[in-house]
């Protein structure tokens, strides 16, 4: 028997326990299924428990490991997947009531790769309906109800990977898969005090995932530590012959945490943040200065958020055109989502193309800036999670909007969010490391070095 709390152990710790015979994959699967069924459901973090599949995969992992077949660090480790990834035999709802009973026969590439790595799928996790593409304005915008925060059920879990964030934070899964078009990994990661990696666009195959925005959707891991996220990322990233955008990336490597790093700090990104967020960020910057240089920077001046919004709205309106025209959006949960994308049908093609042209010239300017640094850092969000029953506009001051999300997602840049402390109402805050395209290895190393010197990532809800 182990004295380590299985619920909040890292992937690496769980792997050691399995190989030491202290716990079996079947016991782990049962443990996390039980927590998902109780705590996870109370947070509205679960769409479907994949119990039968999980137990089958856990028994197989147990047999293989007993026979000396070791598939690596994820072998026997349970995880949850955002419910926009196709899994045969289970519903894939996209978080939306109109798709509550829909099944796909195919398996998402990410799920395939994790299965081949020996990971155990225990749940399909809740999300904001249609990944938030219809413009939700408050937390109650999901088939499963408002996503509740792992630290405080009366606060929002963030979106759109709400269940992935809350389930990891509350010890219901060791790691989860989330997706981000604009903020959907980073927001729930920061709000729930966990680590979330948004890879470079095209690093991880989107095959079998719901499309919201073909040129901005990314898939990435959410876990307790940078180390865990890197472990998962190494299994899910890479070319997929069935997904052409994955075929153009440069190959990365492992960067040591021992070297000196160069950081750019964008203080303009958080000058209007909540006071605790500013204080936590300044403390974090002081930690970064222990192992790297820190320079003040300004972002190139482009209409990042406007171009990103135009791309997302136009592509989402096209991806869901039939759904909107057929009137099916009237069945969505959030009232504001029911007429949510009609405006997208009116965006002129020239505006969409202008946004893509700005992406090109702006992306080149960002690359010139990022070439000088290992990462640009800023608070992931300038605020903590909002109360569960408030309109976002009531809590989030528009003037406080962070400005790395628009540029980072428009340009397809990799970024990782790590816990940086606690703020208003005792809720977590996050710090973002934004890197050059395809330089996941550098931001992972920098964030890992930060976690070596801090312990925010070891905190968890009581």
């Amino acid at each position, binding site marked *: 028997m182990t004295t380590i709390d299985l619920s909040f152990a890292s992937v690496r710790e769980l792997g050691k326990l399995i190989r030491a015979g202290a716990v079996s994959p079947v016991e782990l699967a049962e443990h996390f299924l039980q927590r998902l069924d109780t705590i996870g459901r109370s947070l509205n973090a679960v769409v479907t428990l994949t119990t039968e599949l999980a137990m089958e995969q856990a028994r197989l992992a147990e047999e293989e490991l007993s026979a000396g077949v070791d598939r690596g660090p994820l072998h026997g480790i349970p995880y949850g997947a955002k419910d926009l990834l196709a899994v045969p035999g289970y519903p894939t709802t996209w978080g939306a009531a109109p798709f509550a009973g829909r099944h796909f026969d195919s398996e998402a590439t990410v799920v395939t790769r994790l299965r081949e790595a020996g990971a155990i799928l225990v749940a399909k996790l809740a999300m904001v309906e249609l990944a938030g593409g219809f413009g939700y304005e408050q937390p109650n915008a999901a088939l499963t109800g408002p996503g509740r925060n792992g630290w405080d059920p009366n606060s929002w879990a963030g979106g759109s990977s709400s269940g992935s964030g809350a389930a990891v934070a509350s010890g219901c899964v060791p790691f989860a898969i989330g997706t981000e078009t604009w903020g959907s990994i980073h927001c729930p990661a920061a709000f729930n005090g966990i680590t979330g990696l948004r890879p470079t666009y095209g690093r991880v195959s989107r095959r079998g995932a719901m499309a919201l925005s073909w040129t901005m959707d990314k898939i990435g891991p959410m876990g307790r530590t940078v180390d865990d996220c890197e472990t998962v990322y190494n299994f899910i990233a890479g070319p997929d012959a069935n997904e052409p955008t994955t075929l153009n990336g440069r190959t990365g490597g492992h960067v040591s945490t021992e070297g000196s790093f160069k950081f750019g700090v964008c203080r303009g990104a958080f000058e209007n943040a909540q006071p605790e967020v500013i204080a936590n960020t300044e403390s974090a910057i002081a930690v970064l200065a222990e192992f790297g240089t820190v320079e003040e920077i300004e972002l190139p001046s482009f209409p990042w958020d406007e171009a990103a919004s135009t791309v997302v709205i136009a592509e989402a309106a096209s991806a869901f055109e039939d759904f909107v025209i057929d009137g099916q959006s009237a069945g969505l949960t959030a009232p504001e989502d029911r007429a949510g994308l*009609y405006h997208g049908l009116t965006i002129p093609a020239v*505006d969409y193309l*202008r946004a*893509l042209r700005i992406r090109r010239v702006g992306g080149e300017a960002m690359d010139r800036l990022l070439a000088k640094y290992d990462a640009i850092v800023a608070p992931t969000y300038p605020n903590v999670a909002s109360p569960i029953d408030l309109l976002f506009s009531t809590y989030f001051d528009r003037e406080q909007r962070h400005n790395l999300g628009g540029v980072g997602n428009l340009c397809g840049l990799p970024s990782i969010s790590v816990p940086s402390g606690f703020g208003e109402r005792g809720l977590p805050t996050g710090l973002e490391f934004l890197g050059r395209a395809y330089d996941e290895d550098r931001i992972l190393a920098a964030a890992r070095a930060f976690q070596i010197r801090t312990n925010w990532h070891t905190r968890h809800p009581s």
Partner: protein
Amino acid sequence: MPTNSESSGLTPADARIAEIEGRFGERLTPEQRAQVRTRIERTIALSVAMHATPLTNADEPEIVFAPYRGKS
């Protein structure tokens, strides 16, 4: 040269809203109509902001078209 909507006295927002009303008006509540108008006005503001960034004829969109050829 005025656009069609401007020459008809409609603002760009009015023209787009008229399009949505014409296609889907019967299914929209007054609140939803107001929401659609607000969101259309926001997308027009996005366009105005983007047009403040000068682009040249050579500034291409990030699109790579690959002509399809089957395996046979």
